[in-house]
């Protein structure tokens, strides 16, 4: 579905993504893990058109999409969430969701003047859809709150919720889990699996919670220093020496020394 070929993205002399080559299979939930600063978010940003690559190519279903602007990628069904939540802070949570679907009748200036009826009907449907998503994310009670006032985790949920407002082909999730309550994270995980199975969305998920990755993802790609380090099932990864050294570590050293 997505093929990344020898992708580079440099900041000044620093090679954040340094010749990454990888593939995300259609219908999969691919995990992307790696140490902090491995270049995962940068890779996402390049694929999603937020940053131009220094060199290399990105293909979506065989079509070259390198450097396309985000809104065109969105139109092709490629969605992403941000690691640091990008809510529309002065709009209500519901509006944050309702603005997502593309090509709404009322988004055309002309129509906004002369097509009131049609817009009203569309809005009604959107509202219902948004409320469903809010319900799903357990944040119905803040539907009319300004998004800027949400708690850190709630913003993350909203971020995810936006991708649920449209039919996507592939969704890139950048650390949806960070700061999200584990119980809720499980629910999110379920949702991802359901979207994957029922609607056929492909997912690419960055996450540092190995339980979460383990439950959802196959395969898992490990990045380090801007390149792909390893790929495989979660078990393969967990037992990969290199990965343990660079990323997973061996657990707490001082655990037993605590007073409990």
């Amino acid at each position, binding site marked *: 579905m997505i093929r990344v070929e020898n992708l580079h993205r440099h900041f000044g002399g620093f090679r954040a993504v340094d010749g990454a080559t990888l593939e995300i299979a259609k219908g999969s939930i691919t995990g992307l893990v790696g140490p902090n600063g491995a270049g995962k978010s940068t890779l996402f940003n390049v694929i999603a058109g937020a940053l131009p690559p220094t060199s290399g190519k990105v293909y979506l279903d065989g079509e070259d999409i390198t450097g396309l602007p985000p809104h065109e990628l969105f139109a092709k069904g490629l969605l992403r969430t941000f690691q640091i939540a990008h809510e529309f802070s002065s709009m209500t949570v519901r509006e944050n969701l309702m603005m997502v679907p593309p090509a709404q009748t009322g988004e055309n200036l002309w129509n906004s003047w002369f097509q009131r009826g049609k817009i009203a009907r569309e809005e009604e449907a959107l509202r219902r859809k948004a409320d469903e998503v809010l319900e799903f994310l357990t*944040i119905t009670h803040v539907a009319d709150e300004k998004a800027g006032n949400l708690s850190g985790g*709630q913003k993350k949920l909203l971020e995810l919720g936006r991708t649920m407002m449209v039919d996507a082909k592939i969704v890139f999730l950048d650390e949806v889990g960070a*700061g999200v*309550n*584990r119980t809720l994270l499980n629910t999110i995980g379920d949702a991802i699996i359901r979207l994957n199975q029922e609607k056929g969305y492909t997912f690419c998920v960055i996450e540092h919670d190995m339980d979460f990755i383990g439950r959802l993802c196959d395969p898992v790609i490990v990045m380090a220093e801007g390149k792909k380090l390893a790929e495989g099932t979660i078990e393969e990864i967990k037992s990969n020496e290199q990965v343990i050294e660079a*990323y*997973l570590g061996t657990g707490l050293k*001082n*655990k037993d020394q605590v007073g409990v």
Partner: protein
Amino acid sequence: MVGGYGRGPDILHGVTIEVDRGEIAVIVGPNGAGKSTAMKAVFGMLNVHSGSVMFDGEDIRTLTPQARVAKGMGFVPQTHNIFTSMSVEDNLEMGAFLRKDDFADTMEQVYDLFPILKEKRNQHAGELSGGQRQQVAVGRALMTQPKLLMLDEPTAGVSPIVMDELFDRIIEVARTGISILMVEQNARQALEIADKGYVLVQGANAHTGTGKELLADPQVRKSFLGG
């Protein structure tokens, strides 16, 4: 504590939290429960209508945040917790702003703990990856050498290896007699090392106990720790 933001409705409806010297207290709870709000309330960053905030037996409710820093409190907020336009080193230095002594040692310790920061010491903190930023934020608070260190989700977004290091370090810090109050979503690891655990739901205490007790409580496990 009862309080809220500006003129908005109350978000905290009577929360009680206590940390003793050298202890680690962990707050967990669903998103939007008011954990961060409670932390900010302790630090004097919003209105507390009733209740009290005591530090070393002294009521500090009327003190400004920077006065609380001077008293020995350090805080890492959940978001916007670094100076993005300043270099990593300057970020750390700012943590030691109120210190009059030489803080070069502390800085070395921080660099030991987070080697990547040493590498990027002259880079703008805003150009770091999410996890690296988190390390800067914790490092900055450590520079204060506080008596009470308050961390709002310090491990959000850091890789497992760094997270383990971080928890290790927190334990070490606590052993030197510094109290730790932290909010965590990686609740299981956090509660494992916690002396005290609080579960907050909708602005109020729902469960309280030692870390182990809470871990063992099936209801807590199911509702907040993901089974």
